[in-house]
């Protein structure tokens, strides 16, 4: 319930931002609205899929299973699983948060979930071919490999901070 109020507070902030932009330039405000809507349209199906998966995760996957794969007893293996899961996942980063929250609720280890989120945003398995075409295969492989390892390190540090 609380998060709904936070959401309304953000909406008010966004409205203020738009009002300010509109006052500065009508054209800019229109472009901002179009850009936002376009981005939203781009991820609409992904969102439908993600929240669908969150429901499935909640009802069909027993917490014991998530604890075994991503739980704290798993240690390094949980961390590795979290990072691997985030790497192969395709979709915008906003899609990672609901799934991560659901995993945490089911008893996953916080560092493993952190590794999952970080690798989701840092490692782009699906965009790898495009990255290799843009920067060369060496860059693409090195960047994604490094990011994978760093996702696990960041995950561990997050467990220590939290």
């Amino acid at each position, binding site marked *: 319930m609380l*998060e709904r109020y*936070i*959401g*309304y507070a*953000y*909406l008010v902030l*966004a409205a203020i*931002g*738009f009002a300010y*932009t509109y006052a500065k330039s009508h054209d800019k*405000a229109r*472009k*901002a*609205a*179009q*850009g*936002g*809507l376009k981005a*939203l349209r781009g991820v609409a*199906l*992904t969102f*439908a*899929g*993600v929240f*669908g*998966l*969150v*429901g*499935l995760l909640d*009802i*069909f996957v027993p917490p014991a299973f998530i604890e075994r794969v991503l739980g704290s007893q798993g240690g390094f293996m949980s961390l590795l699983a979290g990072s691997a899961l985030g790497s192969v*996942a395709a*979709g915008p*980063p*906003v*899609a990672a948060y*609901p799934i*991560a*929250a*659901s995993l*945490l609720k089911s008893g996953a280890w916080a560092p493993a979930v*952190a590794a999952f*989120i*970080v690798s989701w945003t*840092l490692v*782009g398995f*699906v965009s790898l071919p*495009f990255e290799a075409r*843009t*920067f060369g295969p*060496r*860059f693409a492989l*090195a960047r994604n490999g*490094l990011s994978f390892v*760093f996702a696990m390190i*960041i995950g561990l*540090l*997050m467990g220590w*901070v*939290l």
Partner: protein
Amino acid sequence: MKRLLEWMRDELLFVLAVALYVWAFAVAPDKALQALAVGGRTFLGILPIIAAVFAALGLFNVWVDKKKIAAVLGKGGGIRAVAIASLAGTILVGPVYVIFPLLKAVREHGARWAVIGAVLAAWAVKVPMVPMEIGMLGLRFSVARIALVALAAIPIGYLLEWVMGIRRPVAAIESDERIVIDE
């Protein structure tokens, strides 16, 4: 057919969810309905934040000048440049097909590999999305992740530059440097 496959690849999560629901409704319709309800409730809870996040994204797009950021990144070479790259990367938003070509242009204008690597790492922070992260995972989680990713961007940049330099013919490295001198 090819277009359908491409669409399925782009919407992998959606396709996966639909396939799993088809299976779920076949084996246990009651539980499948429950799952749908849980997903729907979660979605409705976060809907205001989603709306705000995409409004913010639109505002970012018009206020943050990508070309200006690119111009800043092309200059300088020391650790300061890499640290600035890490900061600039955090406010950069956009899909891969916009950001990759942009950074390629930055690279061609003389930025070192460490800068490109740091920007791409810090790009994972995605400031406009942060409200959603806080809403679902809490403030502490979000702040810790942002700080750690922004910090990690610097060693990631340097390591990447090191990898790019391993066993490359001298001519290739020289041509890299020549670009810097030209700038």
